[in-house]
């Protein structure tokens, strides 16, 4: 008996293969997959911006100023001034729109306790809004010399590390 069992339906098979091939190609070709190789560029750009901002804040405007704005801010714990300056610096860009950067800043200093001479403590400085740990933030730091009493130490010049978490709102 002759029937069609075992026959190759050539046109259907080849057509199905080509359709699957084209579908897979177009899907993959039209999808931008966000890889770690991309994200480091945005991180680098944010780090450069944050580092520049702290450097500019730690530069006096003229030689009659004894201290930089950042030194004064840390010495006076003036979080509002830090917020204003940092947001103005980092969000200023050409064009009609501003950037969407947010930050949270603190500073860290060394303290001496009865049990150890190598402990550190941190103090909150300012933030544009609370950091929820859900944001993809980068960390930038700047050593600043301040004349300030920190912990139980006397007032004298000492180094504190200003740390800023910086991220861009979606």
């Amino acid at each position, binding site marked *: 008996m002759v029937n069609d069992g075992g026959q190759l339906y050539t046109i259907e098979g080849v057509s199905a293969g080509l359709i*699957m091939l084209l579908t897979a190609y177009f899907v993959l070709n039209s999808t*931008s997959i966000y890889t770690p190789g991309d994200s480091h560029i945005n991180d680098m*750009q944010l780090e*450069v911006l944050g580092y520049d901002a702290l450097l500019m804040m730690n530069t006096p405007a*003229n030689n009659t100023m004894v201290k930089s704005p950042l030194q004064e801010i840390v010495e006076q714990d003036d979080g509002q001034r830090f917020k204003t300056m940092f947001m103005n610096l980092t969000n200023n860009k*050409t064009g009609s729109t501003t950037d969407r950067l947010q930050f949270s800043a603190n500073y860290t200093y060394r303290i001496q306790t009865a049990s150890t001479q190598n402990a550190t403590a941190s103090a909150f400085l300012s933030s544009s809004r609370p950091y929820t740990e859900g944001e993809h933030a980068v960390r930038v730091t700047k050593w600043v010399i301040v004349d300030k009493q920190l912990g139980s130490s006397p007032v004298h010049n000492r180094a504190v590390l200003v740390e800023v978490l910086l991220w861009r709102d979606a």
Partner: protein
Amino acid sequence: MTQDSGNLSIDFLVGFTIFILAFIGVATMIPGILIDLNAHGVDYDAVAYRSGVILVEDPGEPSSDLNSWETFNDMQKPNITRFGLALSRDTPNILSQEKVDRFFCTTFVYPDDYHQKVIFGDYPYQFNISLLDPDNNLTRSVGDIIPPNHGYIRRLVKIKGPSNATIGASYIEAHHYYYDNSPSDNVSTHVFSILLNNTYLLNAVKDPSYQINPQKEQIMINITDLRSTIKNQANPQLINITLAKVEVYRRDLNPLGTYQLDLMRTFDTPRIDGNSTPQLPPVSVKDNVTLLFNDPHFISQFRAQDTSLYINLTFNLDQPGTFLNNSFSSPFNYDYSSANVTQPSLRNAAVEVSVW
């Protein structure tokens, strides 16, 4: 008994084979597709970053005290190796106003001049370089309109502004820069002298960010309220004042071991009474004279970095009388005293580089 259960049909085998081949083919394309997507983005961002670093952290080449690229005229463009806007290698992110002005001038050609001296590379990149100067409410840029996909970097900087001095009525009064109101002082020619002690200026402040350097940076001297120094005339408004000449002298050590003043040249572009157009002396003056030294060659040509310059203004009055005159006291010292000179100050700005 022959049964066909348990056998694979040829249809299935052929179809499955085509699917597997297609799958393998597509899978081998995936790295190529992703590399292709990433390659341009990474490249453009890297070029933008590199160009940003060259612009804000490098003073360019050449950049010596007496031979810096921003002083080159258009005929000397081939001698510029690299653009860089920083004051010096030791002052990253602190830009020179003179370099910024020269960089954004219209005599450099986009893209050729900028590509060869700041972007670099063999690939014919297109780019846009912008500077946002919010204190002056100014945005300067060179390049094309920026497309949606491009490499980008933004650098925050400070621009060093020029110093200037204003010598007005109160300053003149406080320093007695006029002849006393006595008959013996009634002369019709008066000389007012301004001292640029370059040795002091370059050594008293070492940091280029705050240094007054007349050989590389603009300085401006405003002398105002000139008629307030005419004190022995009933109506000073009736006196005709003429700025006869402005001369520049250099203080040199002669073979006898004493100092002498050598006339170097005249300064022929004073601005009179607020007029922005310079006027060649002799010129009639109502009340104000402005000396703007913004030609980078004018001071540097005197090679005066280790000595002093005296700028002498000679005024003639049509009637003898007291007037601005310090030839028997001391010259006005253009120095780091904030009472004398408005010091150079740094203002915030941002440099953006986009490459595609």
